[in-house]
């Protein structure tokens, strides 16, 4: 645990500290900018963008070597990757706008073809004399070994710029993500805002290439926003919660990776984020699985309790085992299914409320009130005591149960 704490507190060496800070910033940028794609239901566009960076990396390397340079300059490679990623984005837009192919087909086509082109270029580079040691394969899965200070600066600056741009553009992007028609009616250029959204995701992808690699950067754009969605119903909260989840995943993942051998940074970061997702899926307060199971259970109990009491009131035998157990546990029936004193009293109340509702529906034509009758809502929650008194007056004197008179 100690090496992990060291890494978490930035004490595990210069390089590990750089990677940790860079990963945290990148995670924040990816989480917040990916949210808009997720809300726009276009999460997988980022997958195509990420794969479309590969040919750019190869082309940039070839061009830089042809110009007599080193070919491994990170800034140059990132510029190249941004160019082809942008071309990929434009092609997706072009195919979906121009033909009847759906967006998923366009995404898949761009993704596969650009990745294929990238692989072809990598084999070209392997045949170049300067290409043997290029190490461009590191961009597939990311490689933090031997990360330079300049590289960390690029990631930090790029990540901050992406976060700032997200903050600047949050209003129009939220609007377009939820209701593009309304946004268009307000005078926003929806197509341009869509492109900005994807451009932001592209920028994050490019910045993250070195750290997590082009296949896993997709996870950093998608998983935090999907996770954040479990915790809130408000769009601008989703953005920043997603950023926080992404940032923490990046930072903690980098620390774990630095503290143990054979722990590649990219996959560990993704798995930390996936852990946060799994916890949220299960335990989030409203949208989580456990919460909705509990909600379902409570509903079930209310229905069974009420049906059981109505059956008692009408002196029908209860055969449903769950209802019997429920009523027996509350002391409303005996083990043989016969109502106790308390049970008869409760049944009488339920039965009277039912009749009150019937009167209420006759008196009030207002569906806003009587429409709330679902057999479960207590009548006291809908009508005032005076109104209920009026219903009782019309009902007449209370009728005893069991005697039939």
């Amino acid at each position, binding site marked *: 645990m100690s090496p992990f704490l060291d890494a978490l507190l930035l004490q595990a060496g210069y390089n590990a500290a750089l990677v940790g800070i860079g990963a945290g910033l990148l995670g924040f940028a990816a989480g917040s900018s990916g949210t808009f794609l997720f809300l726009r*239901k276009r999460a997988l566009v980022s997958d195509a963008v990420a794969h479309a960076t590969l040919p750019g990396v190869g082309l940039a390397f070839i061009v830089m070597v042809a110009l007599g340079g080193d070919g491994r300059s990170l800034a140059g490679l990132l510029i190249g990757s941004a160019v082809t990623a942008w071309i990929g984005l434009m092609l997706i837009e072009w195919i979906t706008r121009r033909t009847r192919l759906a967006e998923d087909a366009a995404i898949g086509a761009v993704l596969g073809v650009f990745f294929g082109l990238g692989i072809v270029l990598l084999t070209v580079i392997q045949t170049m004399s300067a290409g043997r040691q290029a190490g461009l394969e590191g961009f597939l899965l990311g490689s933090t070994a031997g990360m330079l200070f300049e590289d960390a600066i690029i990631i930090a600056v790029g990540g901050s710029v992406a976060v700032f741009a997200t903050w600047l553009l949050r209003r129009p992007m939220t609007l377009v993500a939820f209701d593009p028609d309304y946004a268009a009616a307000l005078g926003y250029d929806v197509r341009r805002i869509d492109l900005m959204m994807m451009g932001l995701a592209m920028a994050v992808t490019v910045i993250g290439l070195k750290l997590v690699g082009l296949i896993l950067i997709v996870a950093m754009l998608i998983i935090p926003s999907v996770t954040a969605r479990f915790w809130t119903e408000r769009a601008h909260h989703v953005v920043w919660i997603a950023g926080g989840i992404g940032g923490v995943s990046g930072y903690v993942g980098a620390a774990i990776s630095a503290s143990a051998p054979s722990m590649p940074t*990219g996959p560990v970061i993704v798995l930390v984020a996936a852990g946060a997702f799994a916890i949220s899926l299960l335990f989030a307060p409203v949208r989580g699985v456990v919460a909705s199971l509990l909600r379902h259970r409570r509903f079930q109990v209310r229905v069974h309790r009420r049906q059981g009491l109505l059956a008692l009131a009408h002196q029908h035998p209860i055969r449903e085992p769950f209802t019997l157990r429920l009523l027996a546990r509350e002391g409303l029936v005996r083990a043989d299914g016969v109502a106790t004193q308390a049970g008869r009293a409760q049944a009488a109340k339920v039965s009277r409320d039912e009749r009150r509702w019937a009167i209420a529906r006759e008196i009030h034509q207002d569906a806003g009130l009587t429409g709330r009758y679902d057999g479960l809502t207590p009548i006291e929650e809908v009508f005032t005591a005076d109104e209920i008194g009026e219903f009782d007056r019309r009902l007449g004197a209370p009728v005893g149960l069991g005697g039939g008179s």
Partner: protein
Amino acid sequence: MGTDFVQFSLTPILIGTFAAIACALPGNFLILRRQALIGDAISHVVLPGIVVAFLVTGAVAAIPMLIGAAGAAIVAVILIETVKRLGRIEPGAAMGVVFTTLFAAGVLLLEQTDTSSVHLDVEHALMGNLESLIWFRATGWDSLLDPAALATLPPELGRMAAVCALIVGLMLVFWRWLKIATFDEGFAQALGIPAAGLGFGLVITAAVAAVAAFDAVGSIIVIAMFICPPAAARLMTNRLAAQVWWSVAFATVSAVLGYVLAGYGPLWFGGQNALSAAGMIAAVSGVILGLAVLFGPHRARVGAGRADASG
């Protein structure tokens, strides 16, 4: 076109063609059902599948790895469906969460185990190695009639051909059901066709194709084969049967032309080494799709250009 061709190029071309057709056939239906990216998800989870298979069996053997990859594909499909339902998340995001997580787990497992002594690495799984599937014992075209030489054909060829035949057979058997369920799921259910089961079966068939093909063409490039030929075919015709035939033709052209360009292209430009055949096949299929987008007779959206659509 003599001994060298039979020895070095014939089997890779055949394997590439079978792989392309095996992926393109289910791809037709996936595209029409707007499930094109299922192929993307499946091809990413192939990696964790083969890593787990390697960890369990301790050897790099083809059959356990294929089983592992198929298992991973099924697990992924079930997980995607679970996440979608339980979390009420839209399908694209659910896919993105599941397949990237499984892929990350696969890479981590691979790094954690000592696989340096065996030929199992990420790049191989991603890119495939079509060029290495040569028929070493062939001495010329007459080897095709020589049982001793035929016995040394790369086993991938037989496997890929069998999978391709299986998929063709399945498609022929379920053709009518697939056609109805793809275009009108409600009508299909009214007719008593098990549409949900059919959809799941289609995804599993796609997984089988992807798993069989990844060994030869690499898992990522499988995506191009799933999508590009059927998407191009979709722009050529309004009839499903014709679309399937077009997609088969496009897949074949991509495989053959891609291999030839990768293998012989550099030589024409004075180069020495061949390029990645799998990558080139994907690139050619992309060019075909690009041409179809520009010139395909049925490229327009219905309603966007009435004259175009009826002409």
